[in-house]
Every structure is written in C-alpha cells, then in structure tokens.
C-alpha cells in the first residue's frame, strides 16, 4: 500500500476579526444552513443590534427571519417559546444583561421546563443571547453578571466564550442544540480580535467541554468569559514570581466539565476560581465545592475565589475597583502558599 503524500495546503487568507463579527457570522451561517433558525429581539434589524452582532441579517434573510420586536423581553422570549413549539429554532437577543430580568419567568417557568413537563415531547431549542459583564463603562443595569441565576435553573445550558473562535463555534453549537442555551456574551471582549479565515471560520465546538488555555505546574486558575484574558495576563505576570500557572477556560458552566477541572487541579494541587460576578452564592462557591469533593487529597491549599464584590454593580467610574484584576489574582496565588494554622 502506497502512502499518498498530503496535498500541499494553501495557506488560508486570514484577517483580524472581532468577537462581535464572529458571533454575527455564526448567526448568519446557522440561518443559511437551517431555515428554521429565526433571530428576534429589540433593534436586531435595521440597526444590526446595539453591538452590531446581527448586522446585515435582515437584509440577507428578510424581516421574517430577523425580526425587530416590540420592546418587551418577556414577550420576546414568550413568543419564542410558541415559535419553538411549532418547530422553529429561535435565537433571541436580550440586548443587555439586566434587561433580561423581565423575561426570567418565561425562562425559568417555561423555557427551562418544557421538555421535562412534556416528558420529552416538546423540546425548546431556543438560544438566549445575553451580552453580560462589566468593563465597558456602562451605566447602571448595563454590566451585571447574572450567570449564577441561570446556573441554578435546571434545564438550561449556560455557555460563555472567551475567544473569537469559541464565540463562533459555541454559538453554532448552541443554535443547533435541541435544548435551551443561555449564551452569555462577554461584551468587554466584543472588540477583541483574532486572525480568522472568513472562508472557513472555525469548527463548531461541542457544549460542555472546558479547555486548558495555558499549561502550568504550580496552580490552576479556573475561569470563564471576560476573566479569561485577565487570568492569562496574571499567569504571565506570575512567572516573575516563580509561579507557573495553568489556566482553565470553562466555556460552559452548565454542563460543567468536572473532568478537565479535576485533572488540572490534581496535577497542580492548587486552585483559584476567578469571575466577575459576586462571590457569595456565586459560581465560584459551586466550583470550589466540586473541586474539594473530587481532589481533596491532592490539594495543598484551600480552593480560593477571586470574584467581584457582593455589591450591586458599581457606577462606571468605580468599576475598576470591583472587577477582579491581575493584582487581585496574584494576591490570591500568593495565599496559596498555605500553611495550616496550629
């Protein structure tokens, strides 16, 4: 049997693209592939969304596929439920994190439970896009991190990308999912860029797998969404202190990838969970508990959390004091040189 030499690969023409563009491309590709995919929300049409994520969709697919709705989030999500009941695959936009709160009843009482309520007869293939988190100088109600509320609701998947490629891959997977997905878009990263081949964007990423963004031996930083680049920066800075940090990007909060997280912590023996939302009752507490249950005998120190303060999201001129930054992460890493109190 002869081995056929691999065809020389033409170097893809890449150019920098933003996360917002990658998300838009994921919507476009999903709509082109599947006529049952419908986008709806306030301002998604002519304006292209306040962050321009839905730019051009109405032009390409018509107002019936990308629809400007009345300004009413419960109505937007509630009608999406009915559309899903009739076999469509709605993707709804909530514009800003705190604007999603009026739609909570629809999300929790119907979207999350319909499959269960009907013994699987009526799945809810709805993607709820929620731009979330701070760091963009937004006024009140424009910077909340509400992931803990969504995580606490059985029946929902909760997904959040941190890279341009994942933004594309995870949104494609979310829209294709037969279950409802709360797709949290870190708006601070909307304008982050990466090289990207517009002809063949990237792979569709399965929901539920964490990824090790940076390998290291001294400790693991476990994080997601807007805090991923901060942790990467902290890991670089920690090298000067002699710390070799591993960074795990969760990408999916529900389902939670226990395996990747536990494997990493067993290697390093130390862990810090980093996120913007408040620590009390927040995702970090759940993650720390899961790590402790699985890795207790491998741990050299307690699992620490670096989170936002337990305050309503602060006004923009003070948000830099609230958001977990490199220094706060490094302080926590220093505390991992833990000695038992006698």
């Amino acid at each position, binding site marked *: 049997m002869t081995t056929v030499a691999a065809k020389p690969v033409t170097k893809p023409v890449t150019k920098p693209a933003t996360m917002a563009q990658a998300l838009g491309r994921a919507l476009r590709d999903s709509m082109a592939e599947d006529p049952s995919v419908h986008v709806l929300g306030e301002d998604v049409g002519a304006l292209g969304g306040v962050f321009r994520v839905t730019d051009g969709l109405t032009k390409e697919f018509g107002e019936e596929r990308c629809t400007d709705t009345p300004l009413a989030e419960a109505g937007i999500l509630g009608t999406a439920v009915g559309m899903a009941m009739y076999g469509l695959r709605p993707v709804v936009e909530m514009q800003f994190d705190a604007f999603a709160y009026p739609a909570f009843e629809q999300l929790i009482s119907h979207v999350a439970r319909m*499959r*269960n309520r009907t013994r699987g007869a009526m799945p809810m293939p709805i993607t709820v896009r929620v731009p979330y988190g701070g760091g963009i100088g937004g006024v009140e109600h424009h910077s909340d991190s509400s992931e803990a509320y969504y995580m606490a609701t059985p029946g929902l998947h909760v997904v959040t990308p941190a890279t341009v490629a994942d933004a594309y891959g995870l949104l494609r997977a979310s829209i294709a999912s037969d279950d409802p997905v709360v797709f949290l878009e870190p708006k601070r990263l909307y304008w982050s860029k990466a090289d990207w081949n517009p002809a063949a964007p990237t792979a569709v990423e399965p929901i539920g797998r964490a990824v090790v963004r940076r390998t290291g031996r001294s400790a693991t930083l476990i994080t997601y969404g807007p805090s991923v680049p901060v942790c990467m920066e902290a890991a670089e800075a920690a090298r000067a202190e002699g710390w070799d940090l591993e960074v795990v990007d969760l990408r999916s909060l529900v389902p939670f990838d226990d395996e990747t997280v536990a494997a990493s912590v067993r290697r390093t023996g130390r862990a810090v969970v980093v996120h913007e939302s408040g620590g009390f009752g927040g995702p970090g507490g759940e993650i720390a508990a899961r790590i402790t249950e699985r890795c207790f005998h491998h741990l050299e120190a307690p699992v620490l959390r670096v989170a936002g303060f337990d305050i309503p999201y602060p006004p923009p001129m003070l948000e830099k004091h609230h958001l977990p930054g490199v220094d706060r992460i490094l302080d926590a890493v220093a505390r991992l040189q833990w000695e038992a109190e006698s």
Partner: protein
Amino acid sequence: MTVMEQRGAYRPTPPPAWQPRTDPAPLLPDAEPYRVLGTDAAQKADPGLLRRLYAELVRGRRYNTQATALTKQGRLAVYPSSTGQEACEVAAAFALEERDWLFPSYRDTLAAVARGLDPVSALTLLRGDWHTGYDPREARIAPLSTPLATQLPHAVGLAHAARLKGDDVVALAMVGDGGTSEGDFHEALNFAAVWQAPVVFLVQNNGFAISVPLAKQTAAPSLAHKAVGYGMPGRLVDGNDAAAMHEVLSEAVARARAGGGPTLVEAVTYRMEAHTNADDATRYRPDAEVTAWRDHDPILLLERELTERGLLDDDLKRQAGDDAEAMAADLRGRMNQDPQLDPMDLFTHVYAEQTSQLREQAAQLRAELEVASEEAEEEAR
C-alpha cells in the same frame, strides 16, 4: 435677541401632522354582553349545533362533578372546577379546527377534554403523576399553564410561526380575569396586534381571582375594552350562553384565519364553586350572589331554548345523560387505579442528553432504590 424677547413676532411651527393609527370605534365592544339564547338571534342558530352543544355541556358538567369527587377521595391533589363556566370551555373547543391549537390555563381541563383529549391524560397534572400527561403536538393542546397569562405569548409565537410557514392555523388562548393584570397578558396582546398574528384571546371573567373581585382587579369599563389600546377588536359576550360564545369565538377564529388579526373576547360568567378545594368561598362572597347566578346556569339557558323550540326530545336528554355517565364511570375507574411511576424518570427529560452531574445523581437514586427494594424483600420474608 432671544426667543423670549421676540415673542410678539414669534409664530410656533406646527408639529408634523398627527393621525390616529386606527379608528377606535369598530374595535369597541358592545355596551352589553352579546346574547343569543332567548333572543331573536337564536332563531338563526343551527338546531344541530345547539343539540351538540347541549350534549357537550351535560358531559362537561358531569366531568366537573366527577373530578371534584375524585379530589374528595384524594385521587386528585387539586381540581379547579369550571362548573358554571362550561359554555366557555365547550365553545372554545368547538370553535377550533383540528389543525388549530388550544392554550388552556389550569382551570381549562374541560376545554381540552371537549376538544377530544383523553380525560385521564388531561388530569395527570392535577393527580400529580407527571406535569403534562399528553403530547402537546399530537393533541395540539399546549400544557395546562399554572403561571398566569404566561401561555398567551406562546400562543402568539405559535400562531406567528404557523403563518410564517404558510399554514392557516389559529391559536386560541384562555385566561381568567385575574390573568389580565399580568404583564405577559399585555405583552402578548401587543405582539399579536403588531404582528397581526392569528390568535384569539378568551378571557373568562368569572368574577374572582381566588378571592379578589373584579372591581379590585381593574378600573377598565370592561376587560374587552382592553383590546382597543392594542389595536384589536374587543367582544363582550355572555359567557353562560353557549350559542353566543360559539358564534363570537367562531367569528374571531375565522377572522384570524383569513388574516384579519387577533381578537380579545371577554366572556362574562361566574365561578360557581370555590377557586379550588383548598379555598373557602363563603369568606368573600355572599350566598345570594351565587344563587342569582344559578338561575343563569349555562345548561339551564340552553335547555329552555331547546324546549321552547321543541328540540329537546327525550332521546337527546337520555343520550346526553348516558354519555356523561359512561364518561364519568370510565374516568372514575381509571383514576382509582394507582399510576405506575418510575422514579428514574426524574432524570430522563431534563436535557436531550444527560449531563455528567445528572448521571451521577441518577446513579445515587438507583442505588437508593435498590437498597429500599432489598429491605422490602427482607421484611416480606
């Protein structure tokens, strides 16, 4: 010179011309609830239809009394009775074609049964063995909605989606008077009118939201008046007049199917029983009020009309009574059997594919069940 100083010479520019978006007059409901039975309009009603409505009302009343009895026997966790409101329930079911969809609230099991749903499947939610006992797509009946008015936007979305797909499907959504205060009621009406979705909203104004009377619920002239603000017609109907209900709902369904958009129908009726078996209605309403409504019973009204026109023969009466008794006996017999439950079903339908977290919890429950069954075997020995 400032604007104030040149005030004498100042002539304000008129604003751009304003026009009302729609003429409100044709949207306004009648001053009185629309009636057919006992009026000249009844002469035009199809005798066959009146007889079918009568048989279904009798069956519906029997269904209500049987379900209430099952509650007293502990076979149902709860039953919100629609006794006195059977004309609304039956007319809602009769107004729809097979391809249409019904969106009932928790009090509307009878509408689902009148539409042809198996009475036991309609009661699983209230018995407590599973939340929805039927496949909504097969029955074209949405799950009974416990939260108030949240099923109304679903009806709008479904009707909208059907129209986008080119199907002439209509959705009929039911809600009580209390539900009209909820935000989802308003959002649903607004979306439906803006999208001209083929939806009919049926408000059963039965006087009370548990114990709160309509006067404390709304300051509107009528609930049907609420339609005008959204740009859809509002119809006020005697909810105990089965012929009037059937006519108005059928018209609204036909209008929606023809692309005429949504209609809001307020059926003025009365809840003869308490909110549920857990409620004590004597605390908030006088007996005299209930008695007055007894004379306006939906079955009585139709019976009088049929008798007057010589349409109520002994055959019809006996047939309707026998059918109702047979249904009740079947329901009783099947509801008195303990449902077969599999606890592992708890984890089966949360996600399309179980998460590793749920797989772990399912394994835990399976182990607990095995221990329990071993212990039971031990005890039996």
